[in-house]
């Protein structure tokens, strides 16, 4: 027996379903019932229930890309604020290797960096690194702060939202999984982008958002609405029937490609925003639990593997745990 529907807004302690359902993230089992532990939206796939929180603090996870601020320079590392209850450290050897240099000549207090979480220890302290495209110190631009749980919405399905904003404002945008966003472009466009991002954050749980944002952008920049209405957006709120087979294939495919990738690492740099964003897309789909058809999935994986480096672990993709649970 299930008491809620997909995308329902639920609150902590609310009973979601009986015993035959699996308890996913944001839920717990008590006395034979699956209950929510958060205020958020129900995400239902097969017999697994999750609750996607409306708000939550960022907890560092291996492989994440984050935006951090140097808070202190120490003997052999930097202390980095990553907008989380857990601070990060960037060890000097992650930057210099064995070479000895003066740390504050490279990154000083107040500098903002694009970083990767290399490892997380048992007390959640994050070890950070700069290996990856576009990683390093930001020059210029502004920082926008949003709830980390709203990051997938800002990215949009396959980057639809963020790409639309980038195209229209001509700004470079880098999204960290910790809810910090870097925007650089024309001064006025930076401010407009900031406002648009805050609007997305505020209305992340509503439907029809892509169109709404599109209209806002066009009105602000061109002074008139976009030429035609696009109605794809609603799709984001319709969940397809779960196809367990596809997920297995997808996982295998992903593993195969990752292995191949590992073998032939490609060192050339690309835009930082590309790297950040593609991963977010992946996170997005995981968060929303909506898997498009397999052709799209494969296409997406291909794109993903082309762009991102191999430090992203497959382990943190929530699809895996689903499959394991259902075996």
């Amino acid at each position, binding site marked *: 027996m299930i008491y809620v529907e997909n995308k329902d807004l639920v609150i902590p302690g609310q009973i979601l379903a009986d015993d035959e359902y699996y308890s996913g993230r944001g839920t717990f089992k008590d006395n034979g019932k699956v209950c929510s532990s958060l205020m958020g939206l129900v995400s239902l796939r097969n017999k697994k229930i999750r609750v996607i929180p409306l708000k939550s603090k960022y907890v560092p996870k291996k492989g994440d890309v984050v935006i951090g601020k140097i*808070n202190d320079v120490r003997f052999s590392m930097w202390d980095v604020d990553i907008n989380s209850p857990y601070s990060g450290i960037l060890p000097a050897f992650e930057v210099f290797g064995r070479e000895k240099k003066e740390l504050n000549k490279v990154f000083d*207090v107040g500098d903002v960096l694009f970083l990767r979480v290399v490892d997380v220890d048992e007390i959640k302290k994050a070890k950070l690194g700069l290996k990856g495209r576009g990683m390093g110190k*930001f020059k210029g631009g502004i*920082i926008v702060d949003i709830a980390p749980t709203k990051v997938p919405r800002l990215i949009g399905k396959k980057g639809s939202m963020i790409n639309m904003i980038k195209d229209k404002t001509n700004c470079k945008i880098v999204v960290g999984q910790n809810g910090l966003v870097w925007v650089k472009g024309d*001064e006025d466009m930076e401010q407009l982008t900031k406002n648009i991002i805050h609007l997305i954050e505020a209305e992340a749980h509503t439907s029809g958002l892509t169109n709404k944002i599109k209209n806002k952008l066009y009105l602000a920049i061109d002074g008139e609405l976009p030429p035609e209405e696009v109605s794809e957006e609603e799709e984001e709120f319709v969940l397809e029937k779960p196809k367990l087979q596809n997920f297995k294939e997808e996982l295998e495919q992903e593993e195969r490609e990752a292995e191949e990738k590992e073998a032939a690492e490609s060192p050339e740099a690309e835009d930082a925003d590309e790297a950040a964003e593609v991963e977010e897309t992946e996170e997005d789909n995981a968060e929303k639990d909506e898997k498009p058809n397999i052709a799209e999935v494969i296409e997406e994986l291909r794109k993903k593997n082309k762009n991102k480096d191999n430090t992203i672990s497959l382990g943190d993709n929530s699809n895996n745990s689903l499959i394991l649970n259902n075996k």
Partner: protein
Amino acid sequence: MDIVPEITKQSITNLVKNDKREDGRELTEYRDISIETNVISKAEGSARVKIGGTQVIVGIKPQLGSPFPDTPDLGVLMTNCEMLPMADPTFEPGPPSEDSIELARVVDRGIRESELVELDKLCVEEGKHVWMLFIDLHIIDNCGNLFDACELAVMAALKTTKLPVASIVDEEVVLSEDETFDLPINNELALCTFVKIGDKMVIDPTLSEERVASARLNVGVTKDGHICSMQKGGKEPLTKDEILYCVNTAVGKVKELIEYL
């Protein structure tokens, strides 16, 4: 301590240089202001003021007490400010910080020096019993410019304060159960706060503007355009021209602010 990102410093400074601000205001424009009075029924005077996201509550409680020996026929004003830890992640519980004491004293100075409260009418019996007004400021949300919000709140609360009528019967003070009188007020004032960013002065700073600013200036002006209190704060100096510009701007702005009262 919270470190301001270098690029935030740059972007705010660049905006101000071009006469722009992160929330789209002009350099001499206030955020939205709202004032509600009589928000606490147990206080004899009270107000809640919002300037943008900044929010303060003030309550005024009178108590009978002894006058100061050098002013035996004058009532007493006491202003206290609690920067509550709820208002800002960097505010800590505990006794008032230096910042909080400075804030209370600057707000107090405006009220006191403009002599807008007729303290002589708060005397019940010369040398023995006078009204002491406790003005307690509660900062509940800090989004920048607490000074102006606090001064507006105190002004609004004072204007609506009612005290019980006191009389002397057989050498004892007797308070009337139902008769009250309005706190005698003969003027109005407001505080205008500026911060220096780059080489420009900006009014009603947001939190991030405060954090990147090099200096601060509070200017207290009465309704009739008299300057009654000032305070310079911050790490860097100000030039005479900058100060005169602020005073001149404040004299005009205060009229706008007083309209809200």
